C-alpha cells in the first residue's frame, strides 16, 4: 500500500435530488478514498446511490441535484469548484469511465477506430494518423486479435466482449489517474465477463492504474478489489481491506449481503424425488427454427434461418427441480417458450398421456398444468390491472374456485408468497421488483400446476432479493409437490436448488449432471469452463493478494 496521497478522496459528501414528490437523499455523508495504484470496490444494491456517486465524481449531475459542502479531491485538488470548460479537461484525461452496457455506450453510427482516436486527438493532441496507430496498439493491449480490422468495424459488427474491450481501451487511452468502472461485466456472458476481469487485472498489473470498481456482485468484487466499501441507501456502512470485509464483516448489512451470495455447498432445495416416480413431462428432439420465410421471400431474397434449439430432449419427473444453464443465445429461453406453448416447434412434447407435435395441438389442460414465470418483473404484470385482478385470472379461467371464494383464495395466495393482504388493491408500479416477482410466482401457482417453468426469474433482481425468491420457490415446491424447470445463467444458484442440471450451448443440450457430480472429470469441457468462470461464493474467496 503506498503512502502517497490518495488519487481520489471523498469526505463528508452528501447529495440530494429535488424530485416533485419531495427531496430524495441519494448520498449521505460519504467518505471514500482510492489509493494510488489500487482498486477500490464499491458494492451496493440497486438504489443505493453507487451510480450517483460515479456521476458526482465526474461532475455530471442533473439540475435538481443539490450537493452539500463535502470534499471531492482528485490527487489532492478539489474538482468541485471547476467551471464546465475546466471539467471537460478532467474528463477523459484525468478520470475516465467504463459503463455497463457496451452496446449503448458506443456510438452506433461511428466506427470503433474513430471513437477510440477521438479521445486521443482531443486529450493527447495527436494527429489523426498518430491516433490511429496508437488506437491499434491500445486494442492489441486489450487482447483483440485483429486490431486493424476491429478499428474499421461498427459497433453492431462486434460482440459484447469485443465492444467492452474497445471501451476499456478508450478509458485507458490517455493514462488517466482514475478509471471508474460502473458494472462493466453485468451485461456480458459469464465466460466473456471472466475474460474481461482477467484483462482488467492484467492491465492493472501493467499500468498500476487506480480504479473505482462499482458492482452489486460481491463475488466479482472479491476477485479484483484491494479495498472495499459497502453502500446501503446512500451511506457507507462498512469500508476496509478486502480480506477484512469478506472474511470478517462487521456490519449486519454486509453480513446479510455475503450470506445471500449463492453457495453451491449449501443445499437449499427439496429432497430429490424417488426414482420410481413417473416422468411427468418429456420433450423429444425439439427443434426451433427462427426466420422461416414465405415461398416468395425464399425465391427473391433468401436469408439463412437461425436454429434456436436443435434436437433438444429433456424430461421432468414429478416433484423434481431441473436446472437449465447456458449463456445468452444458448436456447434456454427458447426451450422455456416451447414448453409453455408460446413458440412453434418441431418434435414431440409428451405430457402424461397427451402428445403434442406442434404449437396448435397444445390444449387448455396442458396450459393449466404447465405455468411460466418470466424474467422481468416490471413487464410480466399488466400495469393497468390491480394485483387482485391479476391473481384472479387463473382462478376464473380454469374454474378453480367458485366466485364467492375467489377473494379468500387470492388472500391465501398472497400469504403463500409472504405479501400483505392489502396488496390486493394495489397496482404493479406500487410494488418493488422482488414483490412483483412474488406476485408472478403466486399467479403461476394459483393455477395448481404440475410444472412451473422459471425463466431467469432472479436475474433482474438484487442479490439479497434473489436469495429470498429462491427460498420462496423451494418452499412452494415443498408445499405443493410441483415440479420445476429452473432456467438461469447463475451456476452457483442452480447448484443449490436443482436435482439435475442441463447445460445448453448454441441450441444444443450438451451435458446433464447432478450437482454432486459437478466437479467430476467426465464433464463436458464447456461445462468445466462455465464452472471456472463463475465467481466463487462467499467464504471461499481467494484471499491471496492480487497484485
Amino acid at each position, binding site marked *: 500500500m503506498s503512502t502517497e496521497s490518495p488519487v481520489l478522496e471523498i469526505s463528508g459528501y452528501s447529495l440530494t435530488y429535488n424530485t*416533485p*414528490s419531495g427531496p430524495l437523499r441519494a448520498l449521505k455523508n460519504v467518505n471514500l478514498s482510492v489509493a494510488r495504484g489500487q482498486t477500490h470496490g464499491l458494492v451496493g444494491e440497486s438504489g443505493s446511490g453507487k451510480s450517483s456517486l460515479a456521476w458526482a465524481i465526474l461532475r455530471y449531475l442533473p439540475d435538481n441535484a443539490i450537493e452539500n459542502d463535502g470534499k471531492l479531491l482528485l490527487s489532492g485538488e478539489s474538482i468541485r469548484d471547476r467551471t464546465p470548460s475546466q471539467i471537460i479537461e478532467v474528463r477523459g484525461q484525468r478520470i475516465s469511465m467504463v459503463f455497463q452496457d457496451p452496446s449503448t455506450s458506443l456510438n452506433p453510427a461511428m466506427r470503433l477506430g474513430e471513437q477510440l482516436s477521438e479521445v486521443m486527438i482531443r486529450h493527447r493532441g495527436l494527429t489523426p494518423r498518430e491516433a490511429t496507430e496508437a488506437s491499434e496498439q491500445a486494442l492489441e493491449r486489450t487482447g483483440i486479435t485483429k486490431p486493424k480490422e476491429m478499428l474499421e468495424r461498427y459497433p453492431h459488427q462486434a460482440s459484447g466482449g469485443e465492444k467492452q474491450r474497445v471501451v476499456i481501451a478508450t478509458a485507458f487511452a490517455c493514462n488517466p489517474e482514475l478509471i471508474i468502472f460502473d458494472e462493466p461485466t453485468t451485461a456480458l456472458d459469464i465466460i466473456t465477463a471472466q475474460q474481461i476481469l482477467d484483462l482488467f487485472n492484467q492491465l492493472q498489473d501493467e499500468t498500476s492504474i487506480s480504479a473505482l470498481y462499482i458492482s452489486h456482485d460481491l463475488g466479482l468484487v472479491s476477485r479484483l478489489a484491494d479495498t472495499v466499501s459497502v453502500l446501503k441507501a446512500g451511506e457507507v456502512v462498512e469500508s476496509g481491506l478486502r480480506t477484512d470485509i469478506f472474511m470478517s464483516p462487521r456490519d449486519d448489512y454486509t453480513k446479510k449481503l455475503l450470506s445471500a451470495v449463492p453457495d453451491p455447498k449449501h443445499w437449499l432445495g427439496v429432497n430429490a424425488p424417488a426414482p420410481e416416480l413417473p416422468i411427468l413431462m418429456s420433450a423429444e428432439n425439439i427443434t426451433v427454427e427462427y426466420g422461416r420465410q414465405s415461398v416468395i421471400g425464399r425465391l427473391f431474397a433468401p436469408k439463412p434461418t437461425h436454429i434456436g434449439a436443435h434436437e433438444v430432449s429433456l424430461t421432468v419427473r414429478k416433484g423434481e427441480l431441473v436446472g437449465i444453464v447456458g449463456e445468452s443465445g444458448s436456447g434456454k429461453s427458447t426451450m422455456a417458450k416451447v414448453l*409453455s*406453448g*408460446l413458440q412453434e416447434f418441431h418434435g414431440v412434447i409428451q405430457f402424461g398421456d397427451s402428445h403434442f407435435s406442434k404449437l396448435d395441438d397444445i*390444449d*387448455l389442460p396442458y*396450459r*393449466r398444468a404447465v*405455468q*411460466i414465470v*418470466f*424474467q*422481468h418483473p416490471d*413487464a*410480466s*404484470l*399488466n*400495469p*393497468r*390491472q390491480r394485483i387482485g385482478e391479476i391473481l384472479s*385470472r*387463473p382462478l376464473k*379461467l380454469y374454474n378453480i374456485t367458485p366466485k364467492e371464494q375467489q377473494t379468500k383464495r387470492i388472500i391465501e395466495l398472497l400469504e403463500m408468497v409472504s405479501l400483505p393482504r392489502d396488496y390486493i388493491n394495489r397496482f404493479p*408500479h406500487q410494488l418493488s421488483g422482488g414483490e412483483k416477482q412474488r406476485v*408472478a410466482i403466486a*399467479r403461476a401457482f394459483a*393455477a395448481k400446476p404440475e410444472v412451473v417453468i422459471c425463466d431467469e426469474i432472479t436475474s433482474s433482481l438484487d442479490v439479497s432479493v434473489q436469495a429470498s425468491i429462491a427460498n420462496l420457490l423451494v418452499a412452494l415446491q415443498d408445499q405443493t409437490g410441483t415440479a420445476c424447470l429452473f432456467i438461469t445463467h447463475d451456476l452457483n444458484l442452480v447448484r443449490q436448488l436443482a436435482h439435475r442440471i442441463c447445460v445448453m450451448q448454441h441450441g444444443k443440450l450438451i451435458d446433464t449432471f447432478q450437482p454432486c457430480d459437478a466437479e467430476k472429470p467426465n464433464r463436458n469441457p464447456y461445462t468445466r469452463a462455465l464452472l471456472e468462470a463463475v465467481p466463487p461464493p462467499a467464504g471461499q474467496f481467494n484471499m491471496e493478494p492480487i497484485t
Partner: protein
Amino acid sequence: MPRAFRTAAGITGLGLLLIVMAAAIFGPFLAPYDPQVFHPTNRLEGPSAAHWLGTDQFGRDLLSRILNGAPSTIFFGLGATLFGVGAGSVIGVIAGTAGGWIDSIIMRILDGLLAVPELLFTLLIVTFLGGGMGQAMLAVAVAFTPGMARIARSSVLSIRTREYVLAAVARGEPSRYIILREVLPNAISPIIVESTIRVAFAIMIGATLGFLGLGAQPPSTEWGLMVAEARQFMFRNAWTVAVPGIAIAMAAMGFNLFGDALRDSLDPKRNE
C-alpha cells in the same frame, strides 16, 4: 390536477379549452343579439359599447356570430375526429393483432391512402359528395382514418410482445380477452393523445373547407365561412377577419396544448 397539467403549457391549454367548450355549449344562449339580424346603420364598425367585437359587412354583431358559430365549428372538429379515430383504431387493432397477410394487405392500402395530402383528400371526397357540414365531417373522418390506423397498429404491436401478454397467451386465455383486457387498455393512451391533437386539425380543415365554400354554406355562422366572407372587407374593418380567425386559433391551440399535457400525464414513466 395531474402534475403534467401544472406546466405553463398545460394550464394555458386547459384554460383555452374551457373557454372554447363553454362557448360551444352555451354560446348560442349567451349571444346578445340574433346573429342573423342586420344593423344597417352600424355596418363594419370596430368594437363599441353596443357591439363588443364590432360588426360585419351587413351590420351583424360579430360577438353573437362567433358564439353562435362555436357549436358547429367545435362539434364538427370533435365529431370528425371521433369517427376518424373510431374507424382508424378498429382497423389498426385488427391489423396489429391479426398479423400475417391480413396485416400486410391493410397496411399497403393505408400506405396508398396516406400518400395523398389530407386536405386534398377531403376536397376530393367533398367534391364527390357535394358541400355541406355533414359531408365535410365525413370527408375529414375518412381522411384521418389511415393515420389513426397506423398509430393504433404500432401501439398494439409494441404491446403484443410484452411479457404480460405472453403470460396471458401461455395461460390459454381466449383471444377476445387478450385483445380487450390486456392489449387495448395499454395501447390506448397514444391513441387518445393523438386524437386531441387531431381535433385541432379537424377544426382547421373544417374552417378551410368553409373558406373554400365546400363545407358550411351561408348564412351559417361557422367560423371558416366567416373568414371567407369577410376577406374582401379586410382593409375596411380588420375585425371582421380577425375575430373568427383568432377564435379558430384559440380552439386549435387549446386542443393542441391539452393534447401535449395529456400525453405527458398518461406517460407511465413520468408518474410514480
